[in-house]
């Protein structure tokens, strides 16, 4: 069971790495100036672990064999307790005093409860949003944030929290409710990384939430209108548009998404302008999260959708419409490039806007970031093209590379923010990187065109 | 190795099919007296049927006196009086004749006509080499 709950060597390595960093920091720390950073690292690594286990839990609790295999619930309970226990071991070495440790255990237990609840009953996701948004009302209402008091009360509440958690654990290992929602979660976690978002397409329409249905419908309506308006010969749909229509899915980043993000950011900026500047730093997590989510839904999703439609697109490519040499390939490349470039420009604009309002990144960093994103864009398109034209299934690898690249970008950005980095464009290493990425994307596109002309 | 042939989808239960087949094989001498029949397990395996079915057939054959169960050897063809054997052969043919006559009656052909047809057939057979009695 451990292998199932902890599947995924990349995440495990990442977590263990964070633990190692935390322990190293503790050993080399002479004063407590970076105490907060240490706490954040250890909290983040543990939360990641709990989240990972929580997403895998439905595979075990809602498996049909759960009722038939002897001693199933007891084994599951044992394994969960074991994992939790092991996760607390690094904290013993890292945290400064007993009180903090006890408080941390309480926080761990509470967060585990929230994560698990979230997975089984999506309504509990509200807790995460509350946590992210909490600084706002606190800032607005001028509530002081006293860390000492919080930890003190959490430490004292530990016995109660433990008792509550143990009771819920017993219920969890026998839980079989909310089948519809849980089977959706299982559908997503039961596939490899290369398919996680694409698989959601196979969830029957009727099983989705009202919001998801409306979102998908309005997204598809845009394209339905294009098709139904193109009845006359004069209104022929262009090659690129045809391919665009073929590559749409309910999770695509379309007009809806652009509108929603624009509105969201505008509201956020308005809020930021009206609030006192000292509170701006509370918005930093949210503002850094936004480009991440846009890249995730706009870039990785695009890859997965097209990857899952490989055979469909291959069938399209041989239809009479595309019989002109390389017309399909060039139209396809046109679609991918235009889609991604628009996406990254959008992100660049967003970043600029939020930087102006919240001031969390300086102009230099902004320019550097835009260039890094450009490189990232080129590199990702290159590997996407490679994955799309090879016969072997490289879906997993590409998604992982994109994720790693993205996390690396964020880490680098944080590093840039804390040190005073000059303009990257003047750096020779970066110049080479930029040129290399340009070459790669050119080579990749060329190869893609060539592979089509062979048919 | 004898290969029995059964049809699982037939309306006749498998055990009955086996029974009829083995009965016929004993009566027409395909199985000689004291010959050992293949084991239940073997037959079931070859025919891909439930061993219980084969067991049932064998049991019925034992009951009717065709087979005897011998310790250590399995099912063995019983040695029987020639007269008894002959009687059983007659019974079997009698059944077939009854069916033939019933069928003829449905078609509106009289029993006498059937008898005549049989005589004709025997006459034409006499020109060919005779089969075993």
């Amino acid at each position, binding site marked *: *069971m451990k*292998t*199932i709950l902890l*599947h995924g060597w990349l995440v495990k390595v990442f977590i263990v790495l964070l633990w190692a960093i935390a322990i190293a920091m503790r050993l080399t720390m002479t004063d407590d100036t970076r105490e907060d950073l240490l706490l954040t690292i250890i909290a983040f690594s543990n939360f990641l672990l709990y989240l990972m286990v929580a997403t895998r839990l439905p*595979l075990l609790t809602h*498996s*049909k*064999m759960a*009722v*038939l*295999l*002897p*001693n*199933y619930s007891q*084994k599951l309970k044992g394994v969960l307790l074991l994992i939790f226990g092991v996760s607390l071991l690094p904290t013993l070495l890292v945290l400064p005093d007993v009180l903090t440790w006890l408080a941390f255990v309480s926080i761990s237990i509470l967060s585990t409860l929230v994560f698990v609840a979230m997975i089984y009953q999506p309504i509990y996701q509200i807790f995460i949003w509350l946590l992210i948004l909490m600084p706002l009302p606190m800032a607005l209402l001028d509530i002081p944030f006293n860390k000492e008091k919080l930890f003190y009360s959490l430490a004292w509440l530990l016995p109660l929290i433990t008792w509550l958690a143990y009771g819920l654990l017993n219920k969890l290992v026998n839980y079989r409710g909310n089948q519809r929602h849980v089977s959706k979660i*299982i559908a997503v976690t*039961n*596939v*490899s990384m290369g398919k996680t978002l694409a698989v959601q397409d196979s969830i029957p329409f009727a099983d989705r939430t009202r919001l998801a249905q409306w979102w998908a419908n309005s997204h598809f309506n845009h394209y339905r209108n294009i098709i139904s308006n193109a009845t006359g010969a004069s209104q022929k749909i262009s090659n690129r548009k045809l391919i665009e229509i073929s590559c749409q899915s309910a999770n695509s980043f379309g007009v809806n998404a652009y509108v929603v993000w624009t509105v969201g950011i505008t509201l956020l900026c308005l809020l930021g302008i009206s609030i006192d500047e000292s509170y701006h730093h509370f918005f930093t997590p949210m503002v850094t999260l936004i480009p991440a989510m846009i890249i995730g839904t706009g870039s990785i999703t695009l890859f997965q959708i097209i990857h899952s439609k490989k055979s469909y697109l291959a069938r399209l490519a041989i239809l009479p419409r595309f019989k002109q040499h390389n017309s399909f390939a060039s139209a396809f490349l046109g679609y991918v490039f235009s889609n991604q470039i628009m996406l990254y420009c959008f992100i660049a604009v967003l970043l600029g806007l939020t930087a102006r309002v919240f001031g969390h990144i300086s102009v230099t960093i902004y320019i550097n970031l835009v260039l890094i994103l450009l490189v990232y864009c080129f590199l990702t398109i290159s590997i996407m093209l490679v994955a799309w034209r090879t016969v072997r299934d490289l879906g997993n690898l590409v998604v992982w590379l994109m994720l790693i690249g993205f996390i690396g970008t964020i880490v680098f950005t944080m590093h840039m923010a804390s040190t005073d980095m000059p303009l990257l464009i003047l750096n020779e290493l970066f110049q080479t990187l930029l040129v290399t990425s340009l070459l790669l994307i050119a080579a990749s596109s060329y190869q893609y065109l060539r592979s089509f002309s062979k048919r | 190795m004898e290969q029995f042939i059964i049809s*699982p*989808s*037939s*309306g*006749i*239960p*498998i*055990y*009955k099919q086996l029974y009829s087949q083995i009965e016929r094989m004993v009566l027409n001498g395909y199985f000689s007296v004291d010959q050992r029949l293949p084991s239940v*397990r073997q037959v*079931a*395996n070859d025919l*891909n*049927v*439930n*061993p*219980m*079915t084969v067991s*049932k057939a064998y049991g019925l054959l034992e009951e009717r006196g065709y087979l005897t169960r011998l310790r250590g050897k399995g099912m063995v063809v019983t040695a029987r009086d020639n007269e008894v054997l002959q009687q059983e052969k007659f019974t079997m043919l009698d059944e077939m004749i009854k069916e033939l006559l*019933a069928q003829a*009656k*449905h078609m509106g052909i009289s029993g006498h006509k059937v008898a005549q047809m049989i005589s004709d057939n025997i006459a034409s057979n006499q020109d060919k080499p005779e089969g075993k009695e």
Partner: protein
Amino acid sequence: MACIVNVEGLTKSYKNQSVLNQLNWKIEQGDVVGLLGKNGAGKSTLLKSMLNINDIESGTISIFGEQYNQLSTASKSRIGYVPQENDEISWLSVNDLINFRKQFYCTWSDEKVTELVSRWEIDLTKKISELSPGQIQRVLIILALAPMPELLIFDEPAASLDPAGRRDFLKEILALVSDESITVIFSTHITSDLERIANKVAILDKGQICYFNDLDVTKENVVQLTVHYQPEQNITIPYLLRGKKFSQGQQGIVSQLDQAWLTKMKQQAVEVTINPMGLEDIFLELTA
């Protein structure tokens, strides 16, 4: 023989539609029961309800004499179940899945697993998601057979198998049923498989087990009769399911062959021809 499964008054609805309605069923040790039913009749639902995979509205079910939802660990280890759809974790390799399952059982036959894996040519290193439906079915069958269970429940076990695979699967089951202490319940569309290995047939129709009897008895009783008589002789066929009169008599399908009536007909010189029917036809007649 001991009663292995006893279902009484089982009622289950799905989305306000009644699927199983006061269903009664009793299965004894050593039975090899084939469960037939039309598509959507509720065969899967019945099997899942019996195993507490589904919730039920009312009814009592006991397995090995214990309440079906409070089975002891010992009882659970004596049950093998092959579901119709595969919800095993798709990114586990076959080997990992086997090892995972093995941890739950005290008795587990590694020899059986090795034998079947090599006979059915299953690549242990492949992930479940990389296997074809037929191979997945085979893996599920191996997982069910490995702990040497005494009660085997198969839900459409041969649905994804090709004819050769079905033969193989049948052979496995036949090897098992030679041990008369093992009870098998399987639902299927393929009546010829059932005719080979089952000794009892159950038909699920309109929410109930409308027919449950020995297979041979069924074939000997549910037959087509052609009765020849003169119109003046007013003959009625007992247990008639449906029939048609013609000029010289009547032809019909009966659900039971009344021996007393047969003798009476013989005495009255009424001709009765019996045409037996295969199970598929029997099923269609009984559920018409």
